[in-house]
């Protein structure tokens, strides 16, 4: 075996008629001193290492091309697009309501945020933002915050897993499952919900919704601190994260970073505070910052933000109790979905009263149902940009309408897409193993990055 670690001048992977571009080196195992001896004459060379696109620590299908000098990263080029599914193009061939169903699949870990950015943009284009009932905004905030906790748990857990700390992932997935169970009880689906829609939300809380929410809050209050307890002071955790993937405020500004990456530089920028939407100005919560500019700071911020989200959940719980039985979507019959959608034990569906009405009582009702469901509503021509604070940072939706019932252009500005640009600056000059931590610390979800 040791003979094969000597450089073989012929590329063993080349086909019979391919020209040899350079020697191929194989590591088939040998005594360490033999390996060192065989590589001695190449000790000042750099090598190119390809990570991904299918690698467990790249958060999906991202490819990193790294030029390595020994264990040190000389240059890094992220390569994306492996999960490009044409969501923006597809949405141009569906009506405005169906758009929610598409955009939720972009960043599938925080799908509710995509729906919210898109729906708020359509609301703005329709000019109905101020006409939305208060319960609409409360339900949107409720699901946004539950989804934020689920997304942060994924980010924290996957980050732990990439360090080899499987128990972090286990605990995080356990808590995330509670969030998804609640999401399923409210929206009918664990993920890809299409719950937040233009003009409101899909359905009201189920009858036991507030009880389920109380139970969720109780469990999260009890279990979330556990994650911090066994990670934040752990010397291995700190050794792997502190001063790793360093990005200070000027660099973060230069690269347009937002969310936990920006707040880890000590800058308290949170769109829920600075440019509130969905009535976030009515909730009392802190913007969590850290001043360490590193992966550890981003990790701590995510942990603390989950606590803040539970604070918001408690307040939105009281708000929802106060607005019980009020309308949960726009009342305009030209915009709202006909009938009441429900989530029941046998799945989602229209209410029986609505079916009886359109099938047995009113021809006009049937026509109206058909027009709204099949054709959709018209949105006046125009162009808007709506940004929200998604778990990863600023999630923007740029919408153009040509006055029809389908979007003319939908563009999602995903925070992960922007943050992947920052990887070279975070990683060049550091160790290969720190690159894994840097990717985990920006928590990109490739569905959102590639759309």
């Amino acid at each position: 075996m040791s003979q094969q670690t000597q450089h073989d001048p012929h590329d063993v992977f080349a086909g019979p008629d391919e020209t040899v571009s350079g020697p191929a080196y194989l590591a088939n195992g040998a005594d360490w001193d033999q390996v060192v001896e065989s590589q001695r004459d190449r000790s000042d060379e750099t090598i190119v290492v390809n990570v991904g696109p299918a690698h467990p620590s790249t958060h999906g299908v991202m490819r990193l091309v790294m030029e390595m000098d020994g264990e040190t990263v000389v240059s890094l080029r992220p390569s994306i697009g492996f999960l490009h599914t044409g969501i923006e193009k597809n949405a141009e061939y569906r009506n405005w309501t169906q758009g929610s169903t598409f955009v939720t699949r972009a960043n599938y870990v925080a799908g509710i945020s995509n729906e919210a950015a898109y729906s708020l943009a359509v609301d703005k284009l329709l000019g109905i933002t101020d006409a939305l009932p208060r319960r609409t905004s409360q339900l949107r905030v409720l699901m946004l915050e539950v989804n934020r906790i689920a997304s942060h748990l994924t980010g924290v857990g996957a980050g732990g897993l990439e360090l080899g700390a499987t128990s972090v992932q286990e605990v995080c997935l356990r808590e995330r499952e509670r969030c998804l169970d609640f999401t399923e009880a409210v929206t009918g689906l664990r993920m890809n919900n299409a719950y937040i829609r233009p003009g409101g939300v899909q359905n009201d809380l189920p009858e036991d919704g507030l009880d389920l929410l109380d139970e969720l809050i109780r469990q999260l209050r009890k279990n979330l601190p556990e994650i911090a307890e066994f990670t934040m002071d752990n010397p291995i955790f700190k050794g792997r994260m502190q001063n790793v993937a360093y990005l200070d405020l000027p660099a973060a500004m230069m690269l347009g970073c937002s969310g936990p990456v920006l707040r880890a530089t000590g800058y308290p920028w949170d769109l829920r505070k600075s440019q509130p939407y969905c009535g976030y100005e009515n909730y009392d919560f802190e913007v969590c910052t850290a001043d360490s500019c590193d992966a550890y700071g981003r990790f701590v911020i995510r942990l603390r933000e989950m606590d803040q989200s539970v604070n918001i959940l408690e307040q939105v719980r009281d708000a929802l109790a106060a607005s019980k039985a009020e309308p949960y979507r726009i009342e305009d019959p030209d915009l709202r979905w006909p009938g009441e959608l429900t989530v029941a034990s046998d799945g989602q569906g229209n209410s029986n009263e609505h079916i009886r009405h359109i099938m047995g009582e009113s021809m006009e009702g049937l026509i109206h149902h058909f027009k709204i469901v099949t054709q959709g509503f018209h949105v006046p021509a125009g162009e808007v940009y709506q940004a929200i604070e998604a778990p990863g940072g600023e999630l923007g939706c740029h919408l153009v309408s040509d006055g029809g019932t389908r979007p003319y252009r939908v563009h999602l500005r995903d925070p992960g897409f922007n943050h992947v640009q920052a990887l070279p600056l975070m990683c060049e000059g550091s160790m290969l193993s720190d690159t894994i931590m840097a990717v985990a610390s920006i928590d990109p979800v490739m569905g959102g990055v590639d759309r």
Partner: protein
Amino acid sequence: MSDENTPAEANAKRANDIDPHPQAGPGAEEGDRAARAGEIELTHPHLAALYTAAPAEPEVIATRRGMWGPGTEPGDTSGFGGLHKTYVLPGVTEPPFGGWFDDVADKMAELVPGFATRVSVHRGEITFFVAREKLLALARVLRDDAALRFEVCVSVSGVHYPEQVHQELHAVYELLSITHNRRIRLEVELDDADPHVDSVVPVYPMANFHERETWDMFGIVFDGHPGLTRILMPDDWVGHPQRKDYPLGGIPVEFKGAAVPPPEERRRYDQ
């Protein structure tokens, strides 16, 4: 349910209801616009130098025809006259724009005179349509001037309007000022035959990936970009998929001899 007010008609009315002079920015009422127009010349003297030439009216972006409609003959009540509707984007907004929009526009016009071809204020957002040769200089002052200070180019994307002849491709820049907590939009209109615009990467390094995506999806060439390669599509891909003239393809699904066509060739219900 409101079966009384014939929702289909209301829907059509909504689509026709396009305001050629959309609402002004924060705080501006239609009533005091005229009064402020005189006043604005004193407080914001550079607004007069906003435009390179007299602003062009926006062009029609869509024309829709349908089977049923009132027709063009005055006495025709048959309903068979056919539907014919044209759509335009929100048009030109004349100064004053209202609120801080005027301050920003004034400062921009002072530092880069004649940068705009037109300005549109719609839904509380301001869009500056920028002459392409002025874009890079404008981006630099937008970032560096203390009164403007748009530190972040949040997003660059494109829109393809095949019906706007010689202005088919639009590059859209969303700018954010964290200092002043403001957002503006820049838009550069490009001829499909000459889709070149200066890259803003020298000013806004964060636009790197966004410009690559816009090149990839629309074929807009950002001159001076450090590495304008495809980013989402494979390197050897032919064409730019987000353009309106890009065929969707689709796989014909046969069922008992009939094939389902690709989405853009299917029957549409949005007329």
